[in-house]
């Protein structure tokens, strides 16, 4: 059993995008704050901190989920994938990122990281989705700029259809 006192800072070690990293966290430190302000990985964004907007969605142990509803101490030893891990090391955009660029699927780009992470996992599980499937998946995200249409197009394009 692991017990961490309320004001106790615990070292949390996890694997982010294939690299082992660690930092300190009190029990109540949100995973989003840990990623951003402890690990300096600012690509994951915070939009509502109550699990509705989807901006903070990342992939944890193979599951696309809200990182604002997780505490860093819960994630000891887990494997995280964030937006920083999508492109090649030389910066070449992957198929999904390229599709977003070509279709104008982002404007301010604040919600985009979350949507990319959802879509990444979603396409692994549903390689050939139709329009309605994509819209249904996107219902877990709020984007205020695009009106969603170009995001739907980009994800469909990335699925090779």
């Amino acid at each position, binding site marked *: 059993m692991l*017990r961490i006192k309320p004001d106790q800072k615990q070292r949390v070690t996890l694997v982010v995008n294939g690299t082992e990293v660690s930092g300190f966290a009190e029990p*109540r430190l949100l995973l989003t704050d840990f990623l951003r302000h402890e690990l300096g990985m600012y690509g994951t964004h915070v939009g509502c901190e*109550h*699990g509705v907007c989807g901006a903070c969605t990342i992939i944890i142990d193979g599951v*696309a989920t809200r990182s604002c509803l997780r505490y860093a101490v819960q994630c000891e030893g887990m494997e995280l994938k964030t937006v920083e891990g999508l492109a090649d090391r030389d910066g070449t955009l992957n198929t999904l990122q390229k599709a977003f660029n070509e279709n104008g699927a982002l404007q301010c780009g604040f919600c985009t990281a979350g949507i990319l992470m959802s879509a990444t*996992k979603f396409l692994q599980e549903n390689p050939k989705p139709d329009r309605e499937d994509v819209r*249904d*998946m996107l219902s877990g995200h709020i984007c205020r700029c695009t009106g969603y249409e170009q995001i739907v197009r980009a994800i469909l394009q990335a699925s090779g259809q």
Partner: protein
Amino acid sequence: MKPVAFEYCRPDTMEETMELLAEFGSDASIISGGLSLGAMLNMRLVRPVALIDINHLSELADIEIGDANATTGALVRQATAMNSPGVVSGVPLLAKALPWTGHYQTRSRGTLGGSVAHADPSAEIPLILVTLGGVVKLQSPGAARDVPAREFFHGLLTTDRRADEMITELTWPLRRDNTGYAFEELAQRHGDFAITAVAAEVVVANDGDIIDLSLGLGGVEDRPIVANTSAFLGKPATEETAREIAEMVAETIDPMIDLQANADYRRQLVRVLGARVLSAAFVDATAATEVA
């Protein structure tokens, strides 16, 4: 929006969990998926002294399909249940309702047990459990007990669970012969808490009469309820009967009022969705009967 300071406790076994419940009682919050609790923690609406993280209790993550029942551990994720062939064939009503539960990104982490513990009156999973007459298994340091789902939900976010208990398992009666199922809900947006959700399980005899009927309503009152429809047993399973039942039920409920809807509208949705769902369930049952 940051939570109050709390002690983090991550038990590896049920025994350890029980020790923690004995120690903290109502000062603890149990977190599984955290989809509802996490938001309430961040808003400081819930202010626990200790957060008990049960995600490492792997024995609670199993789905078992038995002879008469399916049992799902409290930690079974909603997406796992939705994609489980055993659930799809054995508990079709649950499989029909799960796509309406939250979103792709929340079902992946949200648990069946967590939704039942949270007891939102509009939530789909409690509604299905109540409609099917399932059972909630609770474990406290001293004892285990089974509570019929229909007695488990007391009101808005309020259940029969005592502070030193946790939900360990849900029991779902398996599909029976000649049985039909249907589910429908209406919300202002896709994936929102339903203004009204309706679930039905019907058993139709070979001659087309209703043998058994369970009509569950979510989002209508302060807990999921099952309408009293006993007067309709033995009636023909037709669209007309479906409408009559829905009409009758709509008049007997005491709907809640919120920003989204008033009582009259909820009654109306019970009428409309009730008739649709019952008709669909009758058709489903008839198809099942023919196969049988």
